[in-house]
């Protein structure tokens, strides 16, 4: 196998459900500190690709490499479980529907995994929770349960939960799609802050303005392939492909 030279390297990713091919030979490299946006209509495969990076939706072909380690390597079940749990500790993920644990307070949501997997003491865990929740502006609600928070607040806690594992890479799967319009901005602000800190991020989104302002590179996916990619200034202003133009036109019309 060739040596890995990029921070995240997706080589010939292929995924099918039965006869339906949702990812068709996708290759993609992401460098450390880069922020990559993925846009495309629903069913384009963008979420599937994102979820393949930490093996939530395993690929049926191709390889995923992260910082010198192959994520989806072939191992006996038990060893593979150990390996993937190790990998996932370094990859934060934020979901469309937050997936906060409803039976835990914000603090417990943030500290559960570090305590369990890194053996943090209660005192250290508390400090960590305060630090991370402060970062997303949720320190005041540290002992609230998710049912007592708004959607935007839940998503900010979910981001803090992912950050508490000190990930090398953050994956955002339509993090603001389930939010009421007036709550989107507070989550975007947190993500922008992360961008300023040079966190490596891959962001699946349907918000073109946000992608344009934050991402270094944007990919447009359609029907399981990357149709076009480039810096936002080029992709949004002067797309070369008809399909991209079509998508952007519809999307901007829909938005205005």
């Amino acid at each position, binding site marked *: 196998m060739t040596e890995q030279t990029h921070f995240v390297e997706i080589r010939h990713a292929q995924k099918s459900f039965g006869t339906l091919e949702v990812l068709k030979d996708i290759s993609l490299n992401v460098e450390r500190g880069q922020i990559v946006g993925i846009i495309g209509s629903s069913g384009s495969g963008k979420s599937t690709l994102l979820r393949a990076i930490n093996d939530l939706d395993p690929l049926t072909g191709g390889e995923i490499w992260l910082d010198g380690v192959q994520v989806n390597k072939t191992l006996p079940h038990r060893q593979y*479980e150990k390996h993937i*749990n190790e990998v996932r*500790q370094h990859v934060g*993920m934020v979901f469309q529907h937050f*997936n906060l*644990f409803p039976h835990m307070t914000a603090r417990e949501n943030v500290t559960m995994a570090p305590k369990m997997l890194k053996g943090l003491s209660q005192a250290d865990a508390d400090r960590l929770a305060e630090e991370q929740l402060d970062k997303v502006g949720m320190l005041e609600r540290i002992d609230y349960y998710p049912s007592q928070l708004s959607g935007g607040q839940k998503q900010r806690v*979910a981001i803090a939960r*992912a950050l508490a594992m000190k990930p090398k890479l953050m994956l955002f799967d339509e993090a603001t799609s389930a939010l009421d319009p007036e709550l989107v901005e507070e989550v975007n602000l947190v993500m922008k802050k992360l961008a300023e800190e040079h966190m490596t991020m891959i962001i699946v989104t349907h918000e073109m303005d946000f992608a344009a302002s934050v991402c270094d590179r944007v990919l447009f996916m359609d029907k399981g392939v990357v149709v076009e990619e480039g810096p936002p200034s080029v992709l949004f202003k002067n797309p070369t492909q008809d399909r991209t133009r079509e998508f952007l036109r519809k999307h901007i019309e829909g938005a205005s």
Partner: protein
Amino acid sequence: MGLDFSIIPKYMDIILLGVAWTIGITVAAALLSFVGGIIFAVIALYAPWLIRQPFRLIEWVFMGTPLLLQLFLIYFGLVQIGIDLPAFVAGIIGLGLHFAVYNSELIQTAILAVDKGQMEAARTLGLSRTQALRKVVIPQAVRAVIPPIGNNMIALLKDSALVSVIGVSELTLSAQRVIGKTYRPFEFYILAAAFYYVINLCMEWVQRKIERRISVSR
């Protein structure tokens, strides 16, 4: 023979001792049924086929036959295989296992009803499947089943009367003993019923309290 409730105070100590036994047996059997219910549910959902099937059969038998018959089996069956337990222990085991099966049904449904995203979120943080089940999925399932399990526990209280038949001196058998001396069945069975009713009301009250308390963390 008319009714004469004035005789009751004289035998109150025996009845009250019976009340204490009923409460003790109910609590012990409830705990057993709760822990057993979780274990059965996890086995039913996640154990390998070879282990799962015998449990299915047990579950099926326990749900398809009367509790009284099961109590006879456990009490006399244990004696037959050489385990001579006090009747009250056999009673607790019988009640506990019987309700564990019913609790297991509820817990299974609740585990399956926990949103798929919860498992994903836990796995994404690096938790193993077992860790995710233990810390994230099962605690939520348990919260969701507390109200219906509360109903099962109230049913358990009432069914604890059945262990009188295998000779456990709880409330019902205590009443029977007193009746044997006084020949006043109506008065003392009504008294026993009143005690059951009061315990039942207390349990319902506790159930409502717990439900209110957990409502925020669901």
